[in-house]
């Protein structure tokens, strides 16, 4: 009986060995197939990024399916009969162990069976399981390893659009385009270390995380812009006040260069000029001093509320100059300092204005993207309020004498309106037919120009464009609001078939009535 246990022991060892080998082979075989799926998903993800939740669901489903497959395939155990058949195959025993195991389980009184068992026992003693089943790495292991390595490499590829699935990263719910991202970056740089920058950061972050919709983000950006542009109103008042003060100071010759700098909004230069005047104060003739003191007093008196501090210092300087040149010098220095501080403040506000412009562009871009998602037709017909009504309405109307940047906003707004009207024309010719003549409802303010007498004096022609109406930005840099299709339509020499009727109608409308007589 103990001898028969030898065969059973051998078969047990073989069974364990075969089972572990089978399981390893099965696991690697399944992995070598199953890993193809996440790899394909990852490749697709590199082209068109999946959202985080999609990644989690995909990986979860894959993991569950793979685990189920693994369990299903590796479940069950080999019987000793199967182990006997296996060892027969491995050692080429021609079913000796299978037969022996059968006769162990089904004892027989035959001497022949005893002989068979005896021979099988002798054979079992000589068999080494480790030799029969040498440990080997299955071929599928290499494939599975390679697939896994590629998957890991793909996840850690240093690409901007790549998301590491090992950290369950995925594409944000809302992906900013490169242009939009550039606009955001520029706006943040301009709004550096301000609350507005943090607010913008928060809006963009919430938009990307899907906490707010694109429409809500546009609204919040619009609110942020209004907040930023609120400071621009003060800037406009300052500029207006500086211009008025400059007009007054220009009456005095020593203050002419200072007035010029103030009129140009360059308070740094104006401060330098004031310091120059202070240096020369001791040698300045008394009548000139008086005239300066008088003009400075008048300029300080007529200044707007935004320049109260500056006007107070100017008034003090005028008073000091009248009494004591040394005290006047100190007062002028104080005035120069105040001018520099104001220059700093204006610079900050100009940056904010530029940031507002960037945000306006961003808002417009987001709106266009949303419109294109809803449908191309809607996108064409929808007017773009952010430029024509937002930027133009807020800064253009309220500050006709504004800084170049503010004026730029205004210009951009008008351009947008034109673009919107254009698109409206292209999209709905019947509206065009029913339309009436329109005009710009803008009342331009009078402005003071260099070399023009404040009051009286002979009139003169100035071959120069208005400073306020000149855009600081090259027209080529103004972003077009037209879609590529619209641009193509404008650049074509041939008229598109669907637009021909509109053009014909247009020329018929503008044709002089007298020439409309048919030629005989």
């Amino acid at each position, binding site marked *: 009986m103990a001898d028969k246990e030898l065969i059973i022991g051998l078969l047990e060892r073989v069974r364990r060995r075969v089972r572990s080998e089978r399981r390893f082979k099965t696991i690697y075989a399944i992995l070598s197939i199953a890993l193809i799926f996440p790899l394909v998903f990852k490749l697709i993800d590199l082209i068109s990024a999946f959202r985080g939740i999609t990644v989690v669901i995909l990986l979860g489903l894959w993991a569950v399916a793979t685990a189920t497959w693994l369990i299903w395939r590796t479940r069950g155990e080999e019987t000793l009969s199967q182990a006997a058949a296996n060892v027969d195959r491995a050692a080429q025993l021609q079913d000796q162990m299978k*037969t022996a195991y059968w006769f162990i389980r089904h004892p027989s009184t035959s001497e022949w069976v005893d002989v*068979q068992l005896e021979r099988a026992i002798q054979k079992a003693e000589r068999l080494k399981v480790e030799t029969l089943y040498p440990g080997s790495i299955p071929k599928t292991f290499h494939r599975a390893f390679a697939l896994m390595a590629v998957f890991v490499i793909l996840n850690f590829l240093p690409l901007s659009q790549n998301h590491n699935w090992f950290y369950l990263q995925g594409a944000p719910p809302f992906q900013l385009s490169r242009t939009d991202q550039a606009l955001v970056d520029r706006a943040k740089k301009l709004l550096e270390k301000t609350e507005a920058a943090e607010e913008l950061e928060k809006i963009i972050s919430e938009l990307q995380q899907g906490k707010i919709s694109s429409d809500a983000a546009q609204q919040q950006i619009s609110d942020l812009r209004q907040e930023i542009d609120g400071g621009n109103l003060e800037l406009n008042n300052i500029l207006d006040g500086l211009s008025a003060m400059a007009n007054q100071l220009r009456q005095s010759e020593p203050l002419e260069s200072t007035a010029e700098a103030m009129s140009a909004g360059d308070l740094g230069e104006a401060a330098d000029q004031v310091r120059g005047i202070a240096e020369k104060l001791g040698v300045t003739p008394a009548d000139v001093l008086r005239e300066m003191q008088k003009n400075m007093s008048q300029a300080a008196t007529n200044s707007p509320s935004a320049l109260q501090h500056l006007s107070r210092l100017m008034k003090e300087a005028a008073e000091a100059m009248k009494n004591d040149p040394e005290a006047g010098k100190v007062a002028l220095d104080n005035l120069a300092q105040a001018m520099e501080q104001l220059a700093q403040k204006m610079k900050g506000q100009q940056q904010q204005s530029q940031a507002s412009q960037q945000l306006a562009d961003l808002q417009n871009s987001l709106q266009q993207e949303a419109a294109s998602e809803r449908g191309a037709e809607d996108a064409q017909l929808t007017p773009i309020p952010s430029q024509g009504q937002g930027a133009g309405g807020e800064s253009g109307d309220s500050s006709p004498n504004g800084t170049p940047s503010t004026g730029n906003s205004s210009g951009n707004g008008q351009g947008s309106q034109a673009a919107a009207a254009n698109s409206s024309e292209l999209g709905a010719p019947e509206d065009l037919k029913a339309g009436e003549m329109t005009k710009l409802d803008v009342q331009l303010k009078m402005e003071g120009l260099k070399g023009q007498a404040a009051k009286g004096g002979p009139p003169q022609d100035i071959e120069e464009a208005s400073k306020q109406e000149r855009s600081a930005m090259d027209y080529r840099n103004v972003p077009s609001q037209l879609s590529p299709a619209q641009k193509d339509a404008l650049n074509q020499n041939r008229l598109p078939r669907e637009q021909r009727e509109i053009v014909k109608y247009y020329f018929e409308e503008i044709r002089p009535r007298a020439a409309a007589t048919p030629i005989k």
Partner: protein
Amino acid sequence: MSTAIEQQVEGFQNQFTAVKKEIAKVIVGYDDIIECAIMALLASGHVLLEGVPGLGKTKLVSTLSEVVHLKFSRIQFTPDLMPADITGTNIVREGEKGEKVLEFQTGPIFANIVLADEVNRATPKTQSALLEAMEEQTVSVGKTTYKLEQPFFVLATQNPLEMEGTYPLPEAQLDRFFMKLKVEYPTAGNMSTILNRTTRLEEPHVTRVLDGPQILDMRKTVRSVPIARPIQDYAVRIMMATHPNTPLSNPLSTRYARCGSSPRGAQALVVGGKIRALLNNRVYVSCDDIRAVAYGALRHRLLLNFEGEAERIDTDTIIKGILEATPETI
């Protein structure tokens, strides 16, 4: 105890080898056929040898009969051969007192080794005369049944069925053959040896190495070899796979076979396997043994359907498909 069995196995191998060696003195090549013919003799079966004329079928049988010390008779089957010409008949004979008595005159079937030469040249009626003798080892004439002397071994030769003037053996007759062996043309090398042996003055002589009792002992030895149930099941699965439209059918059988093997086929597989195991110094049957005898044991038991006949499918092709598709263990 085990030594006795091992000696028995060794003796079996020696006797088998001796017979084979003696036959090989006359018959060139055909080692497999000689071996299978001896196997059939030791398995208490009969052999059907098929081949075109002139390949040495009859010579093989006559040589075998010379090697074993047994009574041999030869029946040349012809279309006008009658059953009584095989079994024998009652004749009227004058008794000692002058009375008329019926006496049974035994036919050529009453021998240990019977050569049924060109068995398919006789009519099916005459062919059927062998049925009882081959299976029950008895001959019934009138109301009397005569037992045939043991060992009784029929070796039939037949020409391929396509040849002129042949009658196909009935299924029942075919099934009684333990094996059907196909005699092919000898190779060029063997042909040269055949010419050397048969075209000279002196002819090879064989000696008798086996007698009837020894054959019967060897038959007992064969039957003693144990076979484990999984191996036996394997033989059963192979046999069942020859049947069309059964759960164990092989697709080839389903398509081309009209009728599969009878249980005699499975018996032939097992007994043939046992002999082969002994020849390989084993005291158990393996699946290899079953496979080795499968062609000879099953090829004549598979009957082709119309499609199989039309496409000239060889039954060996079906058996090959079955052997490839049937798993050793389930």
